[in-house]
């Protein structure tokens, strides 16, 4: 069992080192949500009125409202970046090293997902630290209570990324993911506007948003940041996690025959 744990820790350690070596990745991961916070949210503060909805007990500024969604956005982009790295590893051959490890593939998959989540959690805390310096602070307990929500949402988003990467044949196809997955997931969620606001413009839009896994991730993080627990968000998050992990396992079973499908013979 120790060797299984060592294997997992090595995969996490490698992902961490890779992240440290790619400093620009760290900064771009921070710049993106900070732009939303400092530019977009600041501009919308006056235009957008928000009523008091749980977990808030009083009126909050738009900057405060948007932070949980931006935390989830960091995890979403990190998940997509990790899946992009998987496509790259598959094209370059590095994936073969992992695939020829004697450990079961499902264990390697879980380890790989946890590695990506660990990096994304570090990014989220770095973002929350900058937000705190800007004056957006949450109850102290919230910084700890949000951790399980970040872990589960990170795993779920990572699993989505892995399913996508298994179905992408080359790096060039990855650009489509941004248009067809990342942007719709982010905009059709409660990251930027609450559900009741969506319902005002279109009940259908509200329904789509409420079924979006990213909405549940955002809400779980939002409640967590206030030291609260949303059973609804937690339940749906776990359901989505189970579904996407199952899809991942199915994909991994078929992955080995795809690793060389583009190169028939040499």
């Amino acid at each position, binding site marked *: 069992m120790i060797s299984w744990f060592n294997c997992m*820790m090595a995969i996490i350690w490698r992902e961490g080192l890779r992240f440290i070596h790619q400093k620009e990745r760290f900064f771009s991961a921070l710049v993106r949500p900070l732009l939303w916070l400092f530019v977009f949210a600041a501009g919308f503060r006056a235009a957008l009125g928000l009523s008091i909805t749980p977990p808030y007990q009083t009126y909050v500024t738009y900057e405060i409202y948007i932070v949980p969604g931006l935390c989830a956005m960091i995890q979403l982009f990190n998940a997509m970046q990790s899946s992009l790295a998987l496509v790259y590893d598959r094209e370059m051959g590095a994936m*073969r090293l992992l*695939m*020829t*490890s*004697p450990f079961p593939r499902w264990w390697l998959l879980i380890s790989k997902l946890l590695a990506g989540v660990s990096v994304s959690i570090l990014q989220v805390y770095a973002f929350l630290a900058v937000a705190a310096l800007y004056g957006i602070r949450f109850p102290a307990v919230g910084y700890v209570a949000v951790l399980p929500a970040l872990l589960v949402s990170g795993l779920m988003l990572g699993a989505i990324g892995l399913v996508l990467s298994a179905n992408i044949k080359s790096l060039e196809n990855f650009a489509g993911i941004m248009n067809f997955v990342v942007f719709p997931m982010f905009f059709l969620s409660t990251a930027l506007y609450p559900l009741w606001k969506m319902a005002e413009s279109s009940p259908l839009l509200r329904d789509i948003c409420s079924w979006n896994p990213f909405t549940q991730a955002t809400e779980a993080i939002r409640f967590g940041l206030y030291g609260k627990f949303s059973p609804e968000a937690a339940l749906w998050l776990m359901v989505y996690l189970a579904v996407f992990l199952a899809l991942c396992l199915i994909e991994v079973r078929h992955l080995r025959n795809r*690793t060389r499908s583009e190169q*028939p*013979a040499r």
Partner: protein
Amino acid sequence: MTGRNTPALRVENASKSFGAKRALCDVSLTAAPGEFVAVLGINGAGKSTLFSLLTGLLDCDDGMVEVLGHDITRSRTAALSKLGIVFQEPTLDPDLSVSQNMRYFCALHGISKARSAERIGACLAQLDMVERKDEKVRALNGGHRRRMEIARALVHEPQVLLLDEPTVGLDATTRSAITNHVHQLARDGMCVLWATHLVDEIGYDDTVILLHEGRVVRNGKAAELGGSEGLYALFDTVRKAGAAP
């Protein structure tokens, strides 16, 4: 499972297709411990597909692959733990140092930290790479990277070593050093399968499997096939004819 007479490698009637393209057709081979098997073939002969079947990266459409009696599909863990693999494409992380790459590999094979330190030192020493253990892989030249990949493939003490065109792009001196080293490993009792398109890498006592268009067209000791000269002639005939001689 692993008896005294169990071959180190056994491939029986293995076939693999990619869509309509037949990459391997009814390939069979066996290799004993201490045997050096050279899989010789031009580009497109099916060497890398065979290599992928042997490493479990691909499943056979028909047939089976066994490593020391363990079926690569059904007993994947047991089979892979006995295999040392050097891929044709580099699989090193260029941003990590030599020893970090080795440690990562050890963890992927479930080797304890204490044992890893011991084995990494021994394998790097075997390949004259100890002085470079703290260098980033990015800073190494092609020859050193290849040596490192071989050292890494030996770190978990495999009984079978698979190498897919390991000398591609290397200068003659490095090629010769690596070929000699791997031949020595076979003399020491390891089963080696070496995929190549270079006849001069094959020794007189090696077993040669000549692969062409996914089929085995000759199988025997290099000496029986006429040594280097005979192999050159045979290989040339296959290359020119584009079909089995």
